[in-house]
Structure formats: structure tokens, C-alpha cells
């Protein structure tokens, strides 16, 4: 018997046309398993933020959702430049996205603050020149 459903999506860097595919599928799945609307919304925002981060900053990566009756965990791992100053990057409005990306409406520096706002637990580990891993936990029943 499965207690955890794992969905995994490959995301390619700079593929702006595909932004939202992974988070969209995760959202649909959560809805279909009958998760509460507010949880679906929070998890979808988390998934969307990690997905866009990969597209903007990395060469490639994966977005994963682990779904169980108790919680939803959104994970992302990428092969990219890593984040030199994590504390700075976490600040609201701070962005290292290039100008042309920001012109497209992405990378406004709200990524990490959105993730923090929408998750109950957040872990980020990063290594310059290697990549970044993000783990976001959203507990069921905690609006």
C-alpha cells in the first residue's frame, strides 16, 4: 500500500514557455486527491516558485511533490550557479534575475518570501558552482 505519492518533473533552464507545467500538474493532482483548497493554493505557489527559479537561474533541475494524507512536500534540485549570499537572496525584493527576465514578469525577488509565506517549513541548501536544493513542507490542516 502506498502512503506517499511521488510526482517528479524535469525542468529545463530558460524554457519560459513551459513555466507552470510542473506546478500546474501538481495543483491538479492535489485537487483530484481532495486536498483542501487553501492547501492546494499554498502548495501550488511553492511549486510555481521553485519551478520558475530553475527556469530563470539553472541549466536544468527537477521538481518533486511528495503527497501524503498528512503533508505535501515540494522539493527542487537544480544544476546551476548556486547562491553566493543566501541571507541576502532570502530578502524580499532582492533579485539576481537578469533585466530581460524581469521584463517578462519573472524574478521580482519575491520567490523565497512567497515560499516562506506559503509553507510551514523551509530548507534551502546551496553550493556555488554546483546547484541549489529547496525543500518546502506544507502540513495538512494548518491553514
Amino acid at each position, binding site marked *: *500500500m*502506498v502512503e*506517499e505519492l511521488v510526482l517528479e518533473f524535469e525542468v529545463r533552464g530558460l524554457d519560459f514557455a513551459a513555466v507552470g507545467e510542473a506546478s*500546474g500538474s501538481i*495543483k491538479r493532482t492535489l485537487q483530484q*486527491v*481532495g486536498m483542501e483548497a487553501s492547501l492546494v493554493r499554498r502548495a501550488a505557489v511553492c511549486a510555481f516558485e521553485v519551478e520558475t527559479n530553475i527556469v530563470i537561474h539553472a541549466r536544468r533541475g527537477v521538481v518533486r511533490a511528495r503527497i501524503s*494524507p498528512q503533508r505535501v512536500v515540494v522539493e527542487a534540485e537544480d544544476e546551476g550557479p548556486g547562491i553566493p549570499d543566501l541571507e541576502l537572496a532570502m530578502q524580499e525584493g532582492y533579485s539576481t534575475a537578469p533585466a530581460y527576465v524581469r521584463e517578462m514578469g519573472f524574478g521580482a525577488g519575491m520567490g523565497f518570501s512567497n515560499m516562506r509565506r506559503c509553507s510551514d517549513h523551509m530548507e534551502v541548501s546551496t553550493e556555488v558552482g554546483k546547484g541549489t536544493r529547496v525543500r518546502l513542507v506544507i502540513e495538512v490542516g494548518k491553514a
Partner: protein
Amino acid sequence: MSQGGYFHSVRLDLAKCKGCTNCIKRCPVEAIRVREGKARIMEERCIDCGECVRVCPNHAKYVVTDGLERLQDFRCRVALPAPAFYGQFRPDVPPGAVLAALLGAGFDGVFEVAVAAEAVTLATRAYLERGMPRAARPLISSACPAVIRLMQVRFPTLLPHIIPVETPMEIAARLAKEEMARERGVNPREIGAFFITPCAAKVTAAKQPEGSLVSSVDGVLSMSAMYAEVLRRLPDVDLSGELHRSSGMGIGWGAAGGEGRALGTGTVLAVDGIHNVVTVLEEVERGTLSDVDFIEAQACVGGCIGGPLAVQNPFISRVRMRRLVEEYGKRGPGVDEAEVRRRFRQGFFDMVKPIGPRPVLRLDEDVTRAIRKMDRLEKTLARLPGLDCGACGSPTCRALAEDIVRERAFETDCIFQLREHLEELAERMVQLTRIVPPALSRDKAPGGGGGGEPEDRG
């Protein structure tokens, strides 16, 4: 209404359906399957968008409306033509003539829904002036019932964005009854209000309203049927009655973009066509549309003039609607603004019932079981070819996987799976023919020269 269940107005004529599968892919909520050679609508899922009505080459999908005989049930009857009705006629037919001809078709009065649309526009302005709650931006129009039902099924998190102001159809019925009761001294209960509809969704909205407990609309007549009635009476119509009151503000509601233009404030995004509406709502859900204040979303391409019960080509009626909006753009609305504001404050325009979600796409009531089913769904999907060919009668491979998990279909409904299965079976049969029962193998010992034996046996 179906017994205690969910009412919807798009139906299938089994005799006409050839099971061609054209409709299954167009449905925005995957409500149609073809089984045993006939399409089936999963009733509780259907949002009455009318896509399948338009796409069916055999005209097997239809919209249930009321017949004119329903007029007999009331002492007084008032017709409520949707703004899109004006766009159905030749440019030399003014709205006044349409209304006069309509009156001749068995009504005691007409009340333009365009006038109610003006009232709703003014009430919406008053609502916006109250200042909008930040979380619910952008606000979404409540006017198209197919969009509302789409949101209940596919975008439940966005329901708080809907402006809780009643629709022009509903307001028209209420105002028409008030007016007629006052003028003729009859009991409002003896008045029947008949909406002339361009679509199935409005039929459903009248029979099973979402924002109010009961609708004031008593009957819904098809626009195409009433078009014929009006056309017949146009030549000898009496134009002295001055029935036409609405201005460009209200008439414009009949075509895409008109509602937003009438509102005339804030940044408006107008989207038409149900599949386009889906993509815009997905953006709203992601929170990327913070620069938009108001979304006007209509299920039909072109807006209500593109409704499945409209007769005219929507691109032609769009030109006509535009001309009417220009022609009557300068005159003031057919309602008094101060009066609308006064009644808005009294709650006349409020939706009294919150619009709740309808989670019909959920795999199971119990989350743990639903997660298990989803796991099985994903694994089943991985075995399917991913061609979304529709030959199984489900719109996509994912939908078939879902049907299998819901025990409404089998994996061998997929013709590719079936073929693989048959291949395996055929191989097994060949193998079986090579196994010789011991009783025979004595006769057919090497050198015995049995004729029919495979040569490679050994």
C-alpha cells in the same frame, strides 16, 4: 429537475449520436465519454458551456429550453431579451422593432436585459468604490454562468474573486416584475418572466441558480426559436410604443469586452472562449495578474453573441453590435443612477448565497484512498501509449487511466494495449500448439514421420 440531483441543460439525442468521439476532446471538464458506440455526458460534471453542442457534426447535442406553451401558466408575461438578441437582425432593424415584434409573440410586456445590465454596471461601480479586499484581486465577473460553474469544478480556490453582484438576467426579472405589478396592479406572483437565452448555461442558471436561492426567471426561451417568431412579425410591427430604453452601455454587454467597457474603471482583462478562460484563470491562480483589477470572462467566443443558441455568425453580429453601441452610446442609461445606488445599499443587487466549490473531479471522498487511487492512476498511465487518440472513448490517456481507477473502464479499452495483449495471446497459442500431449508423442517419435509437425520442434 432531475430527482434531487444536479440539473444541467445540455443533453444528448442517443438516436443521432454516431459515437464519433468529436465531442470528447472539446469538453473543458472532460465530462464526455463514448461507450458502446454512444456519447455519455457525466451529468454532475457538465458546466453547460455548449462546446459539445457546437462541435457535434450530427447535431446530437441539444439544449433543453421551455416551449412557448409555458406562457399559458401565467396571467401576465414579460419577455426578457438578452442584449445579444439585437445583434441577430439586419442593420436596418432597430432594437425598438425587435422589441415590438417580440411583444406580439404572446407577451404583455418586454423588459430589456440590456437595461438591467446598465443597473448591474452601476451597482458594480458602487461595489468597487467600497474598496476591494486585497486578497481577492483581480475580481471576476459573475455574469457568465458557464464560467462560474467552470470555477466551481476546476478553480475552487478562485471563487472568492467573483463579484457578489447578481447577473443582468436575474436583475431584469426582478425589475420587470416590479414594474409590471406596479403598472397593472397585479400580484407579482401572477407574472411570468421569460428570458430569451443565447445559451445553455443561462437555462441552468435560471433553473438552478448559484448566487440566489430561487431565480425570478420563470421560463427560458431559446434565442433561435424567438428569432423566427420575431422575424415573422417584423413586417407589420407597430413602432409607436417606444419600447427601447437601453443605451450603448447595456447593449454592449452582448459582445465580448462590452461589460468591461461599460464599467469604465480600473484595468480590465476581457477573455472569451472557454479554453482561453481556462488559461487566464490558471494565471490568476498563480498570482501573476496583480496588475489587473477586473476580469470579464465569457465562455463563448465573441461573448454572448457567440452563444450556441444564437443564429447569426458571431463575427457578423459583432459588427452590428458595435454599430448599435455607437448609435445609442450618447443617450443616458435606461435606469436612474441615484436609484440604483440607493437599492445597492439596500442589498437589492447582492448575491445572497456564497458560491461554493463542486469537487466532482475528486478521486475519492477519503484523502488516503484518493492518494492510493492517484498512485494507481499514474502507474496505469505509464503503461498507456500517451497518444491521446480518443479511440477508447475517453478524451486522453490520463482520462482513461482515471476511468480505469474509477472502475468505469478497462485497460484493454486502449486499442494499443489490446493489440499487445493479443500479440502475447497469439504467441502463447503458437507455443501451445507445439506442446504435444504424451499420448500422441509416441506415434510421432523421431523417424515416425508424422506430417503436420512443426519442423523446429525439439
